[in-house]
C-alpha cells in the first residue's frame, strides 16, 4: 500500500521544511532496520507485556448486548493499559527506537493529554528528557493530565497560538523539532505527519488488532462483522482496523467528532466535512476554507479536536474499505454515561464516540452478528468536563 515516500494512494508524503528532511530520512532508516530486528521486537514485546499490561482484554459486554438487543458486542479494552489508553503502544515503540538512535530527549504534542502522559511515562522509564506541547485551552480542559505529566518529570508548555488546541500543539512541537534535532526525537502521537510517522505509528498500534483478531476467533470461532473505533488523527482506529483490512467481510467504521454537528462550523469531522489538502507534513483530508486556511475545529473531546486525519484513513475512505461516520458531543456524552452505568466501564470521551455509534448500529444488526468496539482509553480524565457539560461544577 505504501510506496517509498510513504504514500497511501495520493495521501501521505513528506511535506516538511528542508531542515527536517535528513532527520526524517534518518528516522526512516532506523525504523526500517529495527522493525525487522529480533532483539528490538523482543524488547518491545517485553515492555508491552510486563510494563504496559498487554495483551489487553477482549471483553464480552453482555449487558450492553442484551440492552441493545442486536449484535453481540465485544470491547477491546485499551483503557486497561498502563497510563490508561492505547497511546502507550506507540510511545514505547518510538521511545525505544529513539533510544537506539542515541536520542536523549523526547518532545510530543498532546490533545487530551493521554499521549503526553504516555510520552512522559516512557521518558521517565528510559531516563530521557521530555517536553510536551499542549494547547492552552486543553491544559484547562485536562488539568489532571497536566499534573500527571509534571509528576512524571516532563515540562508542559502551554501553546497559546492559533486556537490553542491540538493542531497548534502539533505546529509548536514541529517548530521545536526544527530548532533542536541532534538530541531530540519528536514522538508524534498519531498516524499523521510526514512519512515514516503514519506507517511507524500504525505498526506500533497494530498490536490492537493483532490481539483482537486472535481473541475474537478464540472466543467466537469467527471474525467480527464490524470493528468500530474513534478517529481524531486515527491511531487507535488504524491499530484496531489493521489486521482486519484483508478480511473483506469485516466492516470497518471510524467515528469522527462532529462536535455540535456536521452542519455547523463547530465540528472536527474531517472526512465528512473536509477536503484534500497539505498540512502538518502530509497530504490528506483537512477542515479548511476555500483558500486552504485551516479551520478552527471544535469537539468536546480534546483528543479528537484536530482538523486533519491520518493519510491511511483518507485512503481507506477513498477506496471504500472503511467508512467514517460523525458523532456529536451530545451523543458521545450520552454514551459516556451509558457505558459507565451499563457495564461499569467509564470510557474516555474520545472512545465514547465509538460507543455512541455502536449504540445506533448494534440494534440494526442481527443477534447472530458480532460487533467489536475499541475502548481506546479510560474516562477518569473527562469526569470533571462531563460534569460541567451536565451543569454540575465539581473540583478536581
Amino acid at each position, binding site marked *: 500500500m505504501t510506496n517509498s*515516500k510513504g504514500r497511501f494512494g495520493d495521501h501521505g*508524503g*513528506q*511535506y*516538511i*521544511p*528542508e*531542515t*527536517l*528532511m*535528513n*532527520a526524517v530520512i534518518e528516522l526512516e532508516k532506523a525504523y526500517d532496520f529495527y522493525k525487522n530486528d529480533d532483539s528490538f521486537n523482543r524488547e518491545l514485546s517485553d515492555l508491552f507485556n510486563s510494563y504496559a499490561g498487554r495483551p489487553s482484554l477482549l471483553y464480552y459486554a453482555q449487558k450492553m448486548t442484551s440492552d441493545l438487543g442486536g449484535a453481540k458486542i465485544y470491547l477491546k479494552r485499551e483503557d486497561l493499559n498502563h497510563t490508561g489508553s492505547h497511546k502507550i503502544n506507540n510511545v514505547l515503540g518510538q521511545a525505544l527506537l529513539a533510544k537506539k538512535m542515541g536520542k536523549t530527549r523526547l518532545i510530543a504534542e498532546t490533545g487530551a493529554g493521554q499521549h503526553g502522559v504516555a510520552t512522559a511515562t516512557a521518558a521517565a522509564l528510559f531516563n530521557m528528557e521530555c517536553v510536551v506541547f499542549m494547547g492552552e485551552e486543553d491544559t484547562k480542559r485536562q488539568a489532571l493530565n497536566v499534573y500527571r505529566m509534571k509528576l512524571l518529570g516532563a515540562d508542559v508548555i502551554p501553546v497559546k*497560538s*492559533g486556537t490553542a488546541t491540538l*493542531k*497548534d500543539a502539533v*505546529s509548536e512541537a*514541529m*517548530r521545536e523539532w*526544527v*530548532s*533542536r*534535532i541532534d538530541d531530540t526525537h519528536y514522538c508524534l502521537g498519531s498516524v499523521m505527519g510526514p512519512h515514516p510517522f503514519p506507517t511507524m505509528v500504525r505498526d506500533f498500534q497494530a498490536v490492537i488488532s493483532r490481539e483482537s483478531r486472535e481473541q475474537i476467533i478464540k472466543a467466537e470461532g469467527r471474525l467480527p462483522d464490524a470493528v468500530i473505533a474513534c478517529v481524531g488523527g486515527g491511531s487507535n482506529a488504524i491499530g484496531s482496523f489493521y489486521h482486519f483490512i484483508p478480511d473483506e467481510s469485516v466492516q470497518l467504521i471510524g467515528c469522527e467528532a462532529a462536535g455540535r454537528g456536521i452542519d455547523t462550523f463547530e465540528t472536527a469531522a474531517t472526512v465528512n466535512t473536509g477536503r*484534500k*489538502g*497539505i*498540512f*502538518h*507534513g502530509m*497530504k490528506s483530508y*483537512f477542515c*479548511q476554507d*476555500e*483558500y*486552504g*486556511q*485551516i479551520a478552527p475545529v471544535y469537539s468536546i473531546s480534546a483528543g479528537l479536536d484536530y482538523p486533519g486525519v491520518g493519510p491511511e484513513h483518507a485512503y481507506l475512505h477513498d477506496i471504500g474499505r472503511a467508512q467514517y461516520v460523525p458523532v456529536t458531543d451530545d451523543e458521545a456524552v450520552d454514551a459516556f454515561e451509558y457505558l459507565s452505568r451499563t457495564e461499569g466501564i467509564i470510557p474516555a470521551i474520545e472512545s465514547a464516540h465509538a460507543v455512541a455509534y455502536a449504540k445506533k448500529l448494534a440494534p440494526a444488526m442481527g443477534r447472530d452478528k458480532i460487533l467489536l468496539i475499541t475502548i481506546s482509553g479510560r474516562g477518569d480524565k473527562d469526569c470533571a468536563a462531563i460534569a460541567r457539560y451536565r451543569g454540575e461544577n465539581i473540583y478536581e
Partner: protein
Amino acid sequence: MNNFAEAFRGKAFIPFITCGDPDLDTTYRAVLEMAENGADIIELGIPFSDPTAEGPVIQGANIRALSAGTTTDKVFDLVTKIRQTVTIPLVFMTYANVVYSYGADRFMQRCRETGINGIILPDLPYEEREEFSAPAKDNGIALIPLIAPTSADRIAMIAKAARGFIYIVSSLGVTGVRSEITTDIPSIVRVIRENTDVPCAVGFGISTPEQAQKMASVSDGAIVGSAIIRILEKYGKDAPSHIGEYVREMKTAVQK
C-alpha cells in the same frame, strides 16, 4: 525586466512582507518604498492560518493579515497594482496548502498573469516538488528551493535542480531575529557553487546591517523578514516610510 540574474548583479537585498498586515493598502505602499529604496527582489507572503516554519513575529503578521480579510485572490489583485510601477522580481512566500487549495495550475497561471516571478514554499522539500514545479515551469515561475544547515549531502541535488535563486536557511529553527548566526555558510555556498550558477541568498535571523553585510559577503544576498514585520508592528499604517529607510540602510550595508 524581471530577471533574477539582473537582481543579483551586485549583492542583493531581499526584504519580505506579509501581504495584508495590517491591511493591503499598507502592504502596497510598503512595497513601493522597498523598491524605491534599493530592494533587488521582494518576497510577498501570502498569509496562512498555521505557518509552521515561522517564529512568533511572522505568525503574528499572518494572523493580523487573515483577520483583516486577506485572501489569495486579493493578494493577486495587489500584485497587479504593484506591477503598474515596480519592475524588480517579485516572489511569493507561502505554504503548500495555499497553492494546492487554489489549484497549482491555476495558481501558477495567475502568477504569470499578474507578474510574479518565483515562489518559495517552506513546507515543500525536494522530494515533493514535482506537483508544484511542473505547473510553475509551464508558466515560467521559478520554484525557489531552500537549503538548511542540516542539508549536508542533499545540497548538491537541490542546487542542481534550482531555478531563480536558492534560499539558504541560516540557522536551525523558525524565522525570527537572532543575535548570532553560527552556521558555516561559506561551506554550504561552496557546495552550491560546485553544482550550479544559480545565485544564493541567506535568510532567517538577519536584522542588523552588520549581519546582512556579513551574510551577503559570503553569498549573493541577504533576506530579511521578521525585522520588517517588527516595523509594521510598531508603526502600523505609518510603517511604509520607516520600512523604506530600513531597506535603504540594509541595501547600503550589503553593497559594502
